[in-house]
């Protein structure tokens, strides 16, 4: 068993330090890159918090849709193939809901401030 603090706590501490202490001291292109870096650290903490739950739910939906079990990436490959071949499409019960939920779960980690995502959260 690894000791505390947790990865999330460590990353948050580093990101907060960079945000509060270093950003005000940096100018020009490196200031831009620093903000990009801090955003990436924030993304990692969101993934650590959300990934397990959303992956499990996604795998469950894929099992239902495909009638098979397997690793998440293999299930996604199988679904991709079926869509490419036209064996499933938007008329297939559950497909649209699955794609929407999966995509919303990705945006919650990648870009929760993306305007389309915020609009769709409100539309739910």
């Amino acid at each position, binding site marked *: 068993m690894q000791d505390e603090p947790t990865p999330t706590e460590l990353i948050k501490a580093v990101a907060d330090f960079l945000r509060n202490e270093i950003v005000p001291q940096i100018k020009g292109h490196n200031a831009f*890159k620093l903000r*990009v*870096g801090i*955003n*990436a650290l924030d*993304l990692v903490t969101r993934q650590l918090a959300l990934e397990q739950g959303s992956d499990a739910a996604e795998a469950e939906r894929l099992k239902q849709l495909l009638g098979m079990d397997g690793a998440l*990436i293999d299930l*996604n*490959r199988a*679904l*991709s193939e079926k*869509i*490419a071949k*036209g064996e499933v*499409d*938007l008329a297939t019960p559950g497909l*649209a809901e699955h*794609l*929407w939920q*999966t*995509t*919303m779960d*990705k*945006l919650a980690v*990648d*870009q929760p401030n*993306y*305007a*389309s*995502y915020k*609009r*769709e959260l409100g*539309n739910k």
Partner: protein
Amino acid sequence: MIEDQLGRCVASWYKGATGVTGAAKLSGGASQETWTFDIVHPGGNFGAILRRAPPGYGASPSPSRAAGLDAEAVLMQLAYDAGLPSPRVMHVLTPEERLGRGFIMARVEGETLARKILRDEEFAQARPLLARQLGRIAAGIHSLPRARLPNLRSMTATREIADLDREYRGADWPRPVFELALRWLADHDPGPSRQVTLVHGDFRNGNLIIGPDGVRAVLDWELAHFGDPMEDLGWICVNSWRFGEIDKPAGGFGSREDLFAGYEEAGGKVDADRVMFWEVMGTLRWGIMCGRMMQRFRNAPDHPMEQAVIGRRTSETEIDLLRLLAPRG
């Protein structure tokens, strides 16, 4: 050092120039650079821009798609001559100048950062006019005289779908939403366009110089080609170039109706279904480009952070594709 080289170059074609000053690199990777500088002249300095592939690099970074710097210079000059907002091309580099390949153009003052253009008070009066103005400009680009245009690649919807399909499969990462989009595109391929014109290829917010008075210059002709003119109208409507102003499809500035009205005012003919088709294509294209950034990040020896982060923006295009193809409620 570049100021000495530029000074010698400028002296040979700018009458009375005594050198250059204030040279600064604005942007650029290894293969293409943009520099700003001032030509020193007793009658007053003159602002200029150098766009070049440095010595040792070819004129086009991705040979399959890029028009090449020589073609870019011709296109910008033709646009300028036609009265479209475009920088005046002042000089095309020659090998003896040892500056690489490329050209020097007059510097156009104004803003290119899309978010500033969409939010700063300075542009508040221009913003409502931009969609219509961009429509007129697109029509002007599409009617540049074919006989004077450089040799460019030809693109059709069918070939573009095949290119995207190949690039997506090359990445070997399953994306059911992209599969859905590829299927939709194949099912809705409108076939060859009746009109085939010059297409700018990257006509969008971010590649425009804007002032408080409106569009001052169209930049980045690197992806120019011959094809369906509706491609340019679809690309400028891709949600990624609305920068948060998602209810204003035309670049975050205004409505499709305004964009189309401007286009028809200037003699163009709009096919709204084709524009929508190209908007879906463009959304997928940007998504695939984001995915490619992830691969570049992995393969580059210095693992550039910015490219890693763009890789995680692919999902933005997935939600936009779903909003286009499977809208909820």
